[in-house]
């Protein structure tokens, strides 16, 4: 009898977990395994896949300087984007968290508004702002600051700008959640002990909001590094990111095996980053911003 109860207790967590495990298994693990298997196949001259166990794709991806350079360029763009998002995003997050306005909910709703518009449309809007006959050039010409339109589009800067535009709400929400959780008495205590406002922020608020900042940075970095739409719309001929190579391998070259290997390399890099983050800060902070 006691053995039966012990056995049932042992099984209970697995039974409770089974819906989640099944979902993750069917929607994540099994498709991922397909990609892993694909990466060991070969593309034939006709475009058909040659089934087997070949290391050619992996050898090419890991030894070719072209893929390494584009990967570093991708990580660099993602890093710039994350840093800008952190600096630019902290200010509105701080304002929303500390405002005495009654319409705080409205402010939060406004943060969500961009998500209601397609990411592609939001990205394309920069063409109307920065284009030769766009709003900014029009304004500068009207003000007499320039004589002829400036070429502001289709370079790495506009790619970063497009990514910041896309990812800023993620950063603001994460930082906001973190700031909202800080006990206001702590800053008041710091000020009563002689800190001025900036010192209280630097010594108390900023360190305590760091988990939110880190969670937002992780999200921004991972999402930025995985994008291909923004460089396609706002980038010049050279401004590719790693995901563009995956797209080209799979769509243009119809080389699914190579595309699989490339996507796994990107996954490994970004997954490694998540592992490091989890090791030091834990993933629960990210989950908080979605609650």
């Amino acid at each position, binding site marked *: 009898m006691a053995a039966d109860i012990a056995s049932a207790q042992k099984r209970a967590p697995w039974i409770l977990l089974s819906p989640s495990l099944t979902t993750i298994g069917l929607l994540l693990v099994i498709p991922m395994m397909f990609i892993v298997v694909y990466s060991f196949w070969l593309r034939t*001259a006709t*475009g058909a896949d040659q089934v087997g166990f070949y290391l050619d794709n992996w050898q090419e991806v890991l030894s070719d300087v072209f893929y390494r350079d584009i990967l570093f360029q991708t990580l660099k763009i993602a890093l710039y984007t994350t840093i800008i998002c952190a600096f630019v995003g902290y200010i509105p997050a701080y304002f929303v968290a500390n405002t005495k306005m009654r319409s705080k909910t409205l402010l939060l709703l406004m943060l969500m508004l961009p998500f209601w518009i397609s990411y592609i449309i939001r990205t394309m809007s920069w*063409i109307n702002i920065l284009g*030769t006959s766009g709003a900014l050039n029009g304004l500068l010409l009207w003000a007499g600051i320039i004589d002829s339109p400036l070429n502001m*589009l289709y370079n790495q800067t506009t790619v970063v700008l497009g990514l910041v535009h896309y990812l800023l709400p993620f950063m603001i929400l994460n930082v906001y959640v973190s700031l909202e959780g800080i006990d206001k008495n702590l800053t008041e205590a710091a000020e009563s002990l002689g800190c001025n406002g900036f010192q209280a922020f630097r010594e108390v608020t900023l360190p305590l909001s760091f988990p939110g900042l880190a969670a937002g940075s992780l999200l921004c970095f991972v999402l930025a590094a995985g994008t291909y739409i923004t460089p396609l719309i706002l980038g010049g001929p*050279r401004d590719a990111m790693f995901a563009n190579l995956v797209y080209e391998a799979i769509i*243009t*070259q119809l080389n699914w095996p190579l595309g699989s290997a490339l996507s796994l390399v990107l996954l490994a890099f970004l997954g490694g980053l998540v592992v490091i983050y989890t090791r030091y800060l834990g993933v629960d902070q990210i989950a908080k911003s979605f609650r």
Partner: protein
Amino acid sequence: MDDTKRYERLLTRFKNGEISRRTFLTVLGAAGATAGIMGGPMGMLVNSAKAATPEQVRFDGWGGVVSEAFEKYAFAPYTQKTGIKVVSGTFGGADEYLARVKSSQPGEFNLAHLSGVFDYARYHNMELSSELNEDNIPNLKTVIPNLITPLRKISNGKLSAVPYDYGTTGIAYNRKHISDDEAKAKGAKLMVDDAYKGKIGGWAEWKTRIWYGALQSDQNPNDIQDIEAVWDMIRKHRDLALKYWTSGAELMSLLAEEEIYVTEGWSGRIRALQDQGHDIGYYDPKGGLGWQECIFVLKGSPMAACEELLNFMLEPDVAIAVAEGQSYPPALDPKKVELGKVIPTLPAFDPSGTLDGLSFFDPAYWNKNEADWSKKFSRVQRGY
């Protein structure tokens, strides 16, 4: 002959319109009752039969003004006439569409507006082609023979598609900044002219880039002797270019907004820009790229319904209306069909109906090099 084979033949006869749906289902039902089974292959065949006289067929094309023309002048009247709905999808390129088809089940995609003989050969080599019953498409007789012959050569005398229109990828330039005389004098080399650095565009498609790279390095695009010289020209163009465009809509936007002054462009899209009042010139340089587009029927499609749609689309009234809507000349032979007043004014139109003045991709040559060149272009584009 086993039962499955017998049922498959029955289905083929039905799909070809040789027997009616009622007869087919009656024979199948009787066979099922006799065999005492209604599941397994029998069930699959019944489902397939439903698809053979479908409520809808799927058509995928290039979107934009081209799709609008198809919708308005071909699909809507066809649906009105037959009751079969045409579900219209779009793609940005034949490569992208091929990737979608490759990951789908036969029958999921039916008809596609594919470019040139190159794509026809590629799809055929991947065993995605169907076999048209030409008796069901009497209007095929009015099509320019020189557009049909290359397709037949690829698919052993049979057809999997009907040619539908043709056009050119020539040089489009903004007349405010580049004169007609300059465009004619420089030809393809206008796009590697340092004077227009930062105001040059180009299609982000490897075939077109290599074709123009060959012209810029004074080579025959269908017989390139010095491929390194071509890559050098592509590199030069890349360094001078502001943007590689990826769709007709983007091409039109870049030219209309004066982001770029010169690019190669699709004749129909440039005509559409001209019709909108933009002062854009268009010139087919020597050896400029001609292409034909066909309506390709994919393997596993409901053939009778697709053939009926193809025949309908080749009706002169429909084909001319679509051609005027999309600004590409129809594949109809001007010697056999009166094409009206607008068609002869479209860019790339050939009144002789022979298309002898145009250069086309040699499918064997380009398919042979496709894997290497498309991969290499991806690198060159990125600065290598």
